[in-house]
């Protein structure tokens, strides 16, 4: 608030939506420089046990038994209908020690699911309340981070290490939600002030709100739970099949595959023919003007200079949708289906 951030309530948190420079400046800072986000709302669980014996392997769609220590894997937990309970990242801390990072709004639901389906006696701890998270993202983030913690320079994409950061031994992973080179720092709750101040003291760093985080993730077509994923939407319908290992056994697998065989809704990514942006709740129309689906995420894309949207085409509508129309009772805008991500030149794997 000292920076004059616009705050919004989100899942019981007061979140910085944007700082005074505006969302376009924040976007540019991330795509060309380095931005920091306070993402302390995210949930973290610690689990101890052999992946298979403790039941974690059955909860998550990605294979875990062969996951190397020091790496992260992105996947989902599914319900019995093949819908998505949450999307999450699994950190293998040690051969039999795991951290699972989940969405803020789903912490209680996820904790109940894990507790119910982990083998009895498995050590499970919800450490969300003690764990803050600061994201450092952008093409300059490696240099910014290395100034504080030289060791992070060698971190490969989707790996992590324990590093001493301003006197605290913490997990730093090379992960993020913007499509740029970036890091997430899991920091003790209540001590992030010094970390935030140290990062922002670097003139290359721009403090950034969560409004632009949504713009950035839409530009690279990352799903946001409650939009592209939900209890009703399967990861295959959301186009996330590469994070689902159907060769292994996991909860929800049978229904997931049955729904996939029968054909369900299909995700579509599209770019507006104008600067006008699709919004969640807009309808998607076929070129003939028939309602064929709905928009789940949309924004103006500063990188493309056009509106971009993500939506689902209903099961009944088959065939390729190259040209579509989005809008509501007041407006109709032409758009074209596009390959993901919309923004293709991020520094993610730099």
């Amino acid at each position, binding site marked *: 608030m000292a920076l004059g951030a616009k705050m919004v309530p989100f899942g019981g948190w007061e979140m910085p939506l*944007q700082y005074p420079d505006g969302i376009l400046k924040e976007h540019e800072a991330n795509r060309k420089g380095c931005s920091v986000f306070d993402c302390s709302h995210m949930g973290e669980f610690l689990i101890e046990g052999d992946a298979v014996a403790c039941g974690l392997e059955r909860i998550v769609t990605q294979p875990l038994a062969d996951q190397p220590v020091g790496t992260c894997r992105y996947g989902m937990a599914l319900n019995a209908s093949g819908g998505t309970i949450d999307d999450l990242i699994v950190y293998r801390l040690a051969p039999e020690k795991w951290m699972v990072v989940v969405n803020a709004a789903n912490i209680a639901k996820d904790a109940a699911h894990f507790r119910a389906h982990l083998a009895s006696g498995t050590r499970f701890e919800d450490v969300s309340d003690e764990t803050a998270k600061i994201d450092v993202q952008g093409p300059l983030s490696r240099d910014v981070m290395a100034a504080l913690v030289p060791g992070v320079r060698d971190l490969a994409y989707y790996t992590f290490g324990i590093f001493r950061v301003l006197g605290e031994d913490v997990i730093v992973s090379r992960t993020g939600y913007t499509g740029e080179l970036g890091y997430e720092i899991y920091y003790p709750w209540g001590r992030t002030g010094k970390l935030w101040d140290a990062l922002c003291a670097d003139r290359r760093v721009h403090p950034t709100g969560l409004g632009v985080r949504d713009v950035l993730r839409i530009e690279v077509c990352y799903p946001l739970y409650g939009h592209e994923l939900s209890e009703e939407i399967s990861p295959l319908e959301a186009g996330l099949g590469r994070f689902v290992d159907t060769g292994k056994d996991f909860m929800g697998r049978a229904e997931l595959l049955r729904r996939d065989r029968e054909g369900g809704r299909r995700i579509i990514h599209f770019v507006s023919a104008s600067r006008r942006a699709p919004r969640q709740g807009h309808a998607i129309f076929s070129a003939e003007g028939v309602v064929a689906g709905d928009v789940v995420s949309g924004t103006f894309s500063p990188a493309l200079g056009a509106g971009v949207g993500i939506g689902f085409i209903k099961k009944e509508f088959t065939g390729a949708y190259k040209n579509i129309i989005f809008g509501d009772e007041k407006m109709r805008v032409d758009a074209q289906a596009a390959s993901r991500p919309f923004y293709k030149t991020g520094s993610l794997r730099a």
Partner: protein
Amino acid sequence: MDIVEHYLYTKEHEWINIEDGVGTVGITEYAQSALGDITFVDLPHAEAEVEQFEQLTSVESVKSASDIFSPMSGRIIDVNDKLSDDPGLINRSCCDKGWIARIEISDMDESSNLLTAAEYGSYLESLDRNGDADSDE
């Protein structure tokens, strides 16, 4: 906050500057600040008739879309074409170069339904006091 003394205002944060029966319309500093970076202006059609407090157009910012209402009734005689390529002009100069449309006013008496600069200033203070969300958001 910038409030031009001789303009009239709506509670929806539009302004109108009346000169010789023609009203120039835009949005206030409060509105542009609440919207943030404006990315699209759906310019109204010249010659269209508008009614007082009915929708004149809409503007979009990165994360939202907002309706803009006409402060008075009349016929649109001019629109600010510069906003097509440079919608951010509203952010930079909302009370002057970022005007949206000019209206040939059909009923000058309607101006009594609008707020003076002083009244609008007090209205903004009351919003701050009550912590009300801006209805344009």
